[in-house]
């Protein structure tokens, strides 16, 4: 069932791209392709976290990566009702409705036989306990080992060595799986490619400071979630360069809709249909930045591949004490001329939601309006359009009062 959705999604995107070649469409095409590839018989399918695992390592092996969270949670975008039915299947099995809808949906898809084969299941200890526990449960169902890249809170020599050594162990697993030794030159090349993409991305991040900026809202959130899927592949740099080019052209055209309010969006954006975009459009609100869209990592050192990939993990804003996340948010506040910050609070996202007060207090001290928008990523039973409208319009009034 999912495979058909992915194929329809890809063909729709291809048709759209043919008519109007846009980098944003292309990145989603790549995403759809990755989902379809996971159903192929002739490749090794490695389940992973697109947004938190150093994908350069998988690119060096040429395996098909599959992220059960992202892949199954595309579904509410097209069919929120069916998604609820799938979640119901997981709930019937005993998965509590207090667990994240992303994970209930993934487990439901497994129980209904919608997911592809898993040759290796690896994930990361960050962002959340739910992801690694779902990975374990799915591995158990598939009769496979679940591998967890454990990334500590502290960023020091021991932590770097610990993460590096785990990455090396994962390489052994990949070697066993694929029957090929790691080609270290290939890994270095993947890292070089990743660095080039990062430089292109930095240009985009710089352009985002321009007001108005064309590449906004869900596009910017998707970019930081999906972008890393392509790390280590040439296409990633190409897409970012195309985005830079398209953005420059649009800015230079002078025809962009004026931005009344620029906001930073924290945490995740719902995959189910919502009225958020419509409210933003009516009130000229633009999400110009997501916290993961910030270039939080430095150049990777291809001569010390494992160490630099370990550092990439350790520098993630969702790793470590809240100070690491807050300093990233502050940097965005300083650089992007923001009118407000919205934290989307999906009720099972404990690690992010439990930091709302700390973020709110820090923003209060800086005088930046901050709001918590409660909702759910993909469970329509837990989303209220009316409440969202009420809360967002109130917040827009607060931002207006500060103008």
């Amino acid at each position, binding site marked *: 069932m999912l495979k058909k959705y992915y194929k329809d999604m890809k063909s729709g995107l291809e048709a759209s791209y043919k008519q109007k070649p846009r980098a944003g469409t292309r990145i989603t095409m790549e995403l759809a392709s990755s989902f379809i590839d996971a159903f192929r018989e002739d490749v090794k399918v490695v389940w992973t976290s697109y947004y938190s695992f150093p994908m350069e390592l998988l690119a060096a092996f040429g395996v098909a990566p599959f992220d059960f969270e992202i892949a199954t949670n595309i579904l509410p975008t097209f069919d929120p009702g069916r998604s609820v039915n799938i979640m119901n299947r997981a709930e019937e099995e005993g998965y509590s409705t*207090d*667990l994240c809808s992303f994970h209930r949906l993934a487990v439901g898809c497994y129980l209904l036989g919608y997911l592809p084969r898993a040759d290796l299941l690896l994930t990361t200890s960050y962002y959340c306990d739910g992801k690694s526990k779902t990975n374990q449960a799915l591995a158990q169902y598939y009769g496979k080992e679940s591998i*967890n890249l454990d990334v500590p809170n502290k960023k020091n020599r021991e932590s770097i060595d610990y993460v590096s050594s785990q990455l090396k162990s994962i390489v052994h697993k990949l070697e066993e799986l694929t029957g090929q030794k790691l080609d270290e030159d290939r890994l270095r090349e993947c890292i070089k490619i990743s660095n080039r993409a990062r430089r292109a991305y930095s240009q985009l991040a710089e352009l985002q400071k321009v007001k108005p900026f064309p590449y906004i809202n869900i596009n910017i959130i998707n970019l930081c979630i999906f972008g890393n899927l392509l790390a280590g592949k040439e296409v990633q740099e190409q897409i970012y360069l195309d985005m830079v080019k398209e953005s420059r052209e649009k800015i230079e055209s002078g025809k962009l809709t004026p931005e009344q309010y620029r906001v930073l969006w924290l945490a995740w954006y719902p995959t189910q249909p919502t009225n958020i975009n419509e409210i933003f459009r009516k009130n000229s609100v633009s999400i110009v930045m997501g916290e993961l869209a910030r270039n939080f990592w430095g150049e990777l050192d291809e001569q010390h591949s494992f160490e630099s990939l370990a550092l990439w993990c350790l520098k993630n804003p969702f790793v470590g*004490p809240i100070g690491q996340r807050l300093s990233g948010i502050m940097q965005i506040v300083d650089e992007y001329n923001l009118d407000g910050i919205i934290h989307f609070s999906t009720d*099972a996202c404990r690690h992010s939601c439990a930091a*709302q007060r700390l973020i709110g207090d820090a923003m209060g001290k800086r005088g930046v309006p901050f709001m918590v928008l409660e909702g759910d990523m993909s469970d329509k039973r837990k989303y209220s359009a009316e409440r969202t409208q009420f809360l967002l319009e109130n917040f827009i009034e607060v931002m207006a009062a500060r103008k």
Partner: protein
Amino acid sequence: MRDTSKKIGYFCSLVPEEIIVAAGMQPVRVAGKTDAVSTADAYLYPNLCPYIKNVFVTALDGGTKDLDGVVFARSCDGMRRMYDTWKAYVNTEFIYMLEVPKNKDEQAIQYYASQLRDFAGSLGQAFGMKIKTEALNKAIKSTIGLRRLMQSVYDLQKKSPLPVKGSELFEAGLSAIGEDRKIALEKINNVYKRAKAIESTKGKAKKVRILISGNVMDRPDLFNIVEEAGADVPAADLCTASRYFDRRVEEGGDPYLALARAYLGAPHCSRTATPGERLAETREIVKAYSIDGVILTSLKFCDCHLHDIPYISKNLTAEGTPVLFLENDYTFSNRSQLKTRVEAFIEILNQ
């Protein structure tokens, strides 16, 4: 002279209290002491572990003022955030985040050992002393003594009829992790002596034997409910029961490595183990204690445990061990509701 009046609080049973004892201080596992946790919603958020919220409100209310320091563990998402929030809003002299790996292979053990050394160094530095290897070895030995004593009682509890009420043993165990060591040792020793004596007298009627398996529990409510319903609780697979006492630290060699190996080893909670490993450990307890039915319980919003429940429950049931799953809010405010469900479960087991 070491200052034995200093108290260091910790929250997770994966924190080796031997290091605190070696520093000449008293380790205290921090329990929540309030029945109203709504204040926590303003600092953390509503859908968070009720143990964490309770402890945090207790701290805000001044209930942890007697602690000279607190040690957090990277045990779960909720605990990571409580660490951040505690640092911001609770005034405690020494606050430390211990990096407890989520994995338990040799790499993780070596890393954990390095972090335990760091913890010992930081604790010593904060209080102007140095933890010596001899002191740590001595603390390990004394803790082994306490644990062995409890393990002896656990062994007696494998007998049927049950020598000591599960609730009584659970409360004696709680004293070991929340009170002065000497008092705890005395309490457990008394229970042990009575268990031995009862074992020799025998003559009690056999009751349905229930395993309570879950995460953190600081009150005996569920034990009492089960016992009032006419069943026995010979085993409790909880962070505040066997998961604390069944830890086996090897003496000799590098004490930090020994601690790391023991604390990342079995028995595991769902935070460190896969659902399959948790199922295997539960099966062993079921067999060892001749268990008739399992009550799986979890604090609300505990992602680690909630994710494992369906797999464990389904498999145990398929193997012929009846299972009842009960969520709890740490204070057991839904006691009446739980009572009805437990009574029905035990009635079925008695048929």
